């Protein structure tokens, strides 16, 4: 079971985030569900690089021969976390301007695709 759980957890997070986005009634709620989808990709990337009974890839206390997890995956996820927050901020600014123009944030009332 544990050999499948991280992949299923990543798929679950992406699926539940997309479900929340499709059936959302408020655009700010939609941006929150987008952050859940992004967190699914972080879990997937870090689970790929994981090795049992290995330490973090920091060799300050022990020499560089000790078993350690994959550092390349952590490098990918680290920049992704901070930049994802900036993209969420941009989407929130878009939602704010939309509310100022149309006075509502309900996709049903705004009808982007009639």
């Amino acid at each position, binding site marked *: 079971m544990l050999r499948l759980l991280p992949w299923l957890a990543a798929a679950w997070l992406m699926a539940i985030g997309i479900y929340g986005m499709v*059936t959302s009634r408020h655009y700010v709620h939609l941006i929150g569900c987008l952050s859940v989808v992004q967190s699914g990709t972080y879990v997937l990337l870090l*689970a790929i690089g994981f090795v049992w009974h290995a330490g973090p890839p920091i060799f300050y206390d022990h020499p560089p021969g000790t078993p350690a997890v994959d550092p390349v995956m952590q*490098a990918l996820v680290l920049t992704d976390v901070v930049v994802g927050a*900036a993209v969420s901020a941009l989407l929130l*600014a878009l939602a704010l301007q939309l509310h100022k123009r149309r006075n509502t944030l309900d996709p049903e009332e705004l009808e982007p695709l009639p």
Partner: protein
Amino acid sequence: MKYGLALRYALCILALIVLAPAAVLVALHMPAFGEQLPAYGTTVNAHVPYMRQATNVVTAIIFDVRGVDTLGEEFIFVAAITGLAVLLRGGRGEDASRKPIHVDGRWLPTRSEAVALLIRWMLPATVAFSIYVMAHGQLTPGGGFQAGAMLASALLLLFLGDGYRSWRQVTPPVVMQALEALGAAGCVCVGLLPLALGAGFLENVLPQGQSKSLTGGGLIPLFNVAVGMAITGGFANALVEFLEETREPEEEGQR
């Protein structure tokens, strides 16, 4: 439920039910969790600490081995913050007052003294800790990205503890924009420096120093500080733009 919303629910649930067996099949074919030694990762772990005198291999990868990726991510961040500033243009500086927006029936609690005292203790500690994390990027877990986010949330603590007026006095928008621009330009200049010395872009040509010292790693500490400045300035800019939107506009046409 209206017709459109019911159709969306039905289509979404149908799509997820159809895709669920595909997800389980992919999960069955993925390599076993934690059993497979990563090939590239173990090579990097074995060689980079000796080549770059940096004990934090993740920071060495971000700022040295895959430095061009970090440059790209840095500019994605700058572009997102620029887009945000363009979208929320107007209502800044002297046009917006210091009072929060008045909403009928909403009670604005006064600032509690316990919160103000706690934040006056926590704020210098947070700033000092984030500078420590930035400086020790190549030694222990840390680096420019983490320290920039921590410093931006330390500025936010100032807003929570002492109110909007004193927060605006400490973070003038011009200084924050200059910080972000200098950080982004610093990243590019750190990349151009090896070109002036005859090597490739972002190649680590400065003297490597000793392992476990603050100046180890050559180009890594410089790149670290540039990225930290840019991230701090960017998040502080975003917070200034957002918090200005919550202030009462002075004229009626200023929306």
